[in-house]
């Protein structure tokens, strides 16, 4: 009697555990595809942002490395060539007509040609690029501190975000863009870079101009930057989540971790 009961119980337990784990797994997949569950999960993005901002001094610098630490190969991810005719023309003219416009909620909208940017005081930094996928690469970036440009255009008091409009489009023709909090634009290591490891940016790494924002993940480092627009809210722009990867894939806008 007893051994039989024990066996039945064991069978029952095994069956229950097996079934429960299958249901749980399928449940996780269903919840991932629902609209309500990811919106609960994403609540922690705000919490993470608040806590990280609270514990991080405004001007705390990302670690800067030595020349010996530079990666031999700096991988290029995402779009590695904008592929549009317009961009191809810029490449053909060696970006001589490339300019970056700073517009939106500013006193004086301004435009800088690449040559003009290169005449401004530059900053060089050897920093670590952390991809959301998990890898890291170290490179030496040279460019103009974004704060210097903003001081010239004078943001209006209601400007909260800087939106970076880029030259690349995806296979469906959707243009790439990114955004960051205006406060982060004034961080000393936030630069519009035009050189990597002492040579002008190549196409895979964002020629001729890309953002370096060293305190967040790689997908925030917009390449092929053409226009910077200061706005009060991100909701009216493209998918409204503040960036191409945020709209398209559900990556966090706050990419501090």
């Amino acid at each position, binding site marked *: 009697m007893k051994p039989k009961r024990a066996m039945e119980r064991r069978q029952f337990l095994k069956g229950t555990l097996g079934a429960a784990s299958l249901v749980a797994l399928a449940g996780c997949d269903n919840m991932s595809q629902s609209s309500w569950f990811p919106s609960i999960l994403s609540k*922690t993005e705000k919490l993470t942002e608040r806590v990280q901002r609270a*514990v*991080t001094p405004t001007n705390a610098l990302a670690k800067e490395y030595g020349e010996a630490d530079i990666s*031999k190969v700096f991988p290029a991810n995402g779009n590695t060539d904008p592929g549009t005719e317009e961009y191809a023309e810029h490449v053909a003219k060696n970006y001589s007509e490339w300019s970056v416009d700073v517009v939106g909620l500013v006193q004086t909208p301004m435009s800088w040609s690449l040559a003009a940017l290169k005449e401004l005081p530059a900053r060089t930094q050897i920093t670590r690029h*952390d991809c959301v996928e998990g890898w890291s690469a170290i490179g030496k970036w040279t460019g103009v501190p974004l704060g210097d440009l903003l001081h010239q255009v004078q943001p209006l008091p209601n400007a909260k975000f800087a939106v970076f409009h880029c030259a690349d489009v995806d296979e469906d023709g959707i243009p790439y863009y990114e955004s960051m909090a205006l406060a982060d634009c004034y961080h000393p290591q936030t630069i519009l870079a035009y050189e990597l490891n002492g040579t002008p940016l190549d196409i895979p790494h964002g020629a001729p101009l890309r953002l370096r924002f060293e305190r967040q993940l790689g997908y925030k480092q917009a390449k092929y930057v053409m226009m910077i627009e200061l706005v009060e809210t991100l909701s009216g722009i493209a998918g409204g989540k503040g960036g191409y990867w945020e709209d398209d894939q559900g*990556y*966090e806008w706050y990419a*501090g*971790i």
Partner: protein
Amino acid sequence: MASLIHEGTETGQGRENEQVSELPMRSEPLPLETQSVSDGLIGNQSDASAAPSSSAPVVERVYRHRLPIRISHWLNVPFLIILIMSGLQIFNAHPALYWGDRSDRDQPLLSIRPMKTESGEMRGITTILGHKFDTTGILGYSDGRGRAFPAWATIPSAKVLAMGRQWHLFFAWLLVINGLFFTAYALISRHVTRDLAPTGKDLRGIGKAVKDHIVLRHPKGEEAKRYNVLQKLAYVVILFVVAPLIVLTGLTMSPTIDTAFPWLLTIFGGRQAARTIHFIACFSFVGFIVIHVLQVILTGFFNNIRSMVTGWFLVKHEHEGASHEA
């Protein structure tokens, strides 16, 4: 069995508060009615039934786990499973580990990748410190796809890094909050000093404990009322070494946290090293969970589960004074 367990459940919950404040390890010896005890309750059932009535075994009820500890324990079950499986999803986005700050792709410590053989067949190859292993079907290539960990081990099952991160970062917060709650309670209630910290006597008996574990001889009677030395060490290491390590190495992977606390990069040997330690700590958790569940099953599954659900644990004293002889 049913009547005994139900009695324990009811009294256990009714008396909880008063017990916690004064006598956390209160015990109530009960005479054992042989018929009412079923298998699974206590390991050695046949001996007990055969025992003569003059030395009838006595079952003592011990209030072993207090409510906050029980809640915290069971919350950890879904939290850890979800964190491990969503963590494997994140790992799959770049299935290689390195030391230092950079990930030099020609020098991984470990990589799990699909590879094509000369005949054009796909195999999953796991490379550890330069040694290659064919792990097709589980690691590197499974269900006709190249992926490091298989679909059944990741959340979500499909390759969706963004969603894996959302699960992971959400439950990471819950685990940290639960961990802080547990740590505060365990310190204030003296659970740490009284039940978890190994004593000098414990540590001197470590050789015997190892031998006993190898032959699966488990403590009985008085000895079963407290944690044995290996159990204490396992709990202390997982709670106060591996858990903080996994949180801190997780935070070291955050570029923002690295600017606020640059010493994290120094103590862990770089961001990629922190990622590697995070992975090792994860599999330390997996190893702990496997052994923990095995021990729960081997040392009286229903008694153990009941004690973590209701708090009440039954200890059988077979022959007073001779309970250790197997």
